[in-house]
């Protein structure tokens, strides 16, 4: 299983039963042990939201202001914010950007998130992020995600091998992100935490600058 986990898709005999069974088992485990076994209480702390060692960091890693973005590769509004936000990060130069892959909109979001996070192990997370966010629309098929990554210069065999090798870590991170988002009461994507402000909308460049200014003023 290790070798092809990432693109394992509907395989009938057993898979269906299997997945259903593992879900059931998962649920039982959760009921039995409480969610705390899965998601430690610390995972929900601001410390983990801002400084999760596994979450990719962009912008200036030593910046004085944090922007945490929760996003999905099938979310059109998220895609709209990529360019304005990177323009603000570049011109400001003192903002630390924390990426929270939160795949909730479609099944292929999970696939995309896993590949993007696998690219982190090649130190190319942001390349993958841009490639995937650059695909038009919502409900992107997995094939198109693969093509976009290939076009961005990824060796797909290597990337998938990495995704499989680090699958356990990647899945844990996605679950942690999900727990954090739910802990914050988020309802969808995108959401940005800018300093102490939470913004649940697709800001344009001026909007980002305004919130950044407000956050610095309030600090």
């Amino acid at each position: 299983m290790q070798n092809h986990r990432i693109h394992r898709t509907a395989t009938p005999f057993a898979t269906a039963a299997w997945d259903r069974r593992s879900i059931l088992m998962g649920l039982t485990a959760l009921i039995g042990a409480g969610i705390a076994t899965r998601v430690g209480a610390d995972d929900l702390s601001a410390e983990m939201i801002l400084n999760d060692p596994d979450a990719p960091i962009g912008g200036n890693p030593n910046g004085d202001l944090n922007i945490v973005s929760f996003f999905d590769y099938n979310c059109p509004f998220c895609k709209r914010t990529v360019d304005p936000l990177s323009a603000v990060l570049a011109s400001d130069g003192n903002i630390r950007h924390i990426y929270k892959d939160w795949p909730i909109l479609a099944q292929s979001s999970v696939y995309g998130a896993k590949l993007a996070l696998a690219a982190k192990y090649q130190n190319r997370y942001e390349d993958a992020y841009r490639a995937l966010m650059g695909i038009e629309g919502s409900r992107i098929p997995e094939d198109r995600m693969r093509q976009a990554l290939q076009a961005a210069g990824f060796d797909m065999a290597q990337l998938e091998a990495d995704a499989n090798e680090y699958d356990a870590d990647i899945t844990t991170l996605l679950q942690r992100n999900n727990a954090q988002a739910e802990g914050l009461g988020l309802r969808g994507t995108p959401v940005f935490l800018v300093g102490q402000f939470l913004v649940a909308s697709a800001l344009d460049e001026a909007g980002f600058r305004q919130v950044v200014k407000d956050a610095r003023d309030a600090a």
Partner: protein
Amino acid sequence: MPRQIFLRLITSLFVALWSLSAAAQQQDLLQAEEAFRLTVERETNDTIEMRWQIEDGYYLYRDHLEAKNRATGEKVALHTDPGIVEAEDANFGPSEVYYLEAVARLGADAPGEVAITYQGCKKDSICYPPMTVALDTGSLQLSEPVVGFGIAAPLSPSAGNTEIGGFTLADETQNGGMIGSLLAIGGAGWVIASFLVFGLLLAFTPCVLPMYPILSATLAREGEALTARRGFVLSTSYVLAMAAAFGLLGIVAAWSGQNLQMVLQSPYAIGAVSVLFVVLAASMFGLFELQLPSAWVNRMAGVTAGSRGSVSGAAGMGFLSALIVGPCVTAPLAAALLYIAQTSDAYLGAAALFALGLGQGIPLIAFGTIGSRALPRAGAWMVQIKYVFGFVFLGAAIWMTGRIVPPQATLALWALLLLTAAVFIGVADRLTAEAAAGPRFRKAAGLALSLAGVIFAIGAASGGGDPLRPLGHFGAGSGGSQQHVAETSTTFIEAGSMPDLMQVISSADGRPTFVYFTADWCVICKTIERDVLQNAEIIAGLDGFQRVRVDLTALDQTNQEMMRDLAVVGPPTMIFFDGDSKEASGSRLIGDATIATLKASLELARR
């Protein structure tokens, strides 16, 4: 450390602030259930209208509205009106959406339980995860919406896409397969009727044939009490138990995801059944009467004629026959197990399997009833008949043991059996000069059996293992027969695990690939390997194919993974990938394969 505590304080303050601001910021952001409110209504022409009231500033996607049959997972047609074309962003293309209100209709032919999925966004703000409600089309009751697509199982596959790693399976392995289509044609009754017919068609295949001697031997144990009526009762209970075992297969598959038949091909189960056969044979030879207390005999062999014991004995034999003695993977069996796995509808799947078992058993009932009438009843004949079936049981025991011991040992056992049978016929009895024709023929038959036994013994002693050609290995070196030349020219790559197989397929380089699942205990596989795979035309047809064999004799984790990933229920299964590593549609062969069907499948993959 004070600094740490301070940091902690600060960060928890942040969380509090975020949560506060989350509440504040999201105050104007509705919960998905509030933003999109769904009501259903039945219209005069029996169609069902679903109406979403959408809050101002929110929208639903037209192409994310979906209906699925909750039982089978198949898509259900949903009629929607055109929406407004909304450019979500100049850069990111338009999509068709509904503001304020969306309407979708289900046809009058919609299944009983439909899952409806919808997804929307607040304009320029956020997009909500998909929501799914269950609709009972009879009572029009709606469940609470379930949000998301199940992040609990982030690895689970996306629907409709069948690609795994470097290869793609054919569509027909998905979506409920054969049962799904039968269900669509004529409902559950049609599925069950069809499986009964499939069973009848399978009744004379190598899967069922071993059951004839076993059933006759079981009946012969009745001795003089055997009447047509009694034969009918016993063979019916045998067949019902066999059908029940098939149904049980379905339930176990739904519960554990495994094919029970394969799990039961363990040395212990086979050994136990072989021992049971030997015990039964011993009772036929009358050995128990000499050696065991009668209570034992009654319990173990159910000798008391007319007792309920022999009915349940026959039933037990039927159960064992289906699960352990003649485990056979056939296309309908595989279809039913796959259907159960895909839909978790164990009831229909198990009912179909029960019907399949019953169909396979109907000729057995006829055979048992008519045969019981034909069997001579009185006198010394009966003893002879019992001896004959004692040998049938011993033969069955050897045949079973053959799955777990080396072929030479099996051949030696056959030799022993033949020699013993020869003695029973009277090969060692003295033939007087005035003997009549009868005894002379018996003596001749006995000699023929002993000759066969001696040949088998020589074969076994010199390392042979094929009961059909016990001395075949002597000629193998010097060109031998045509079969042997053939055998050496059809070679297989053994694949023991999924990565092995992936590697072979990824190195296909435009060549088609033939994957053959087999096992030592698989009876039909033996026939296929001898009669089909050795055929000159097939050998020629397989030329240019990558040939991969997967041995399922020992069922372990890695084997099970391969079966799962390739949607294989058991051996024999043949899968054909074309040069692009796609399974050729309609090419898969499950169960018995003939030269004609194999050629046709090879042709499909070559294209």
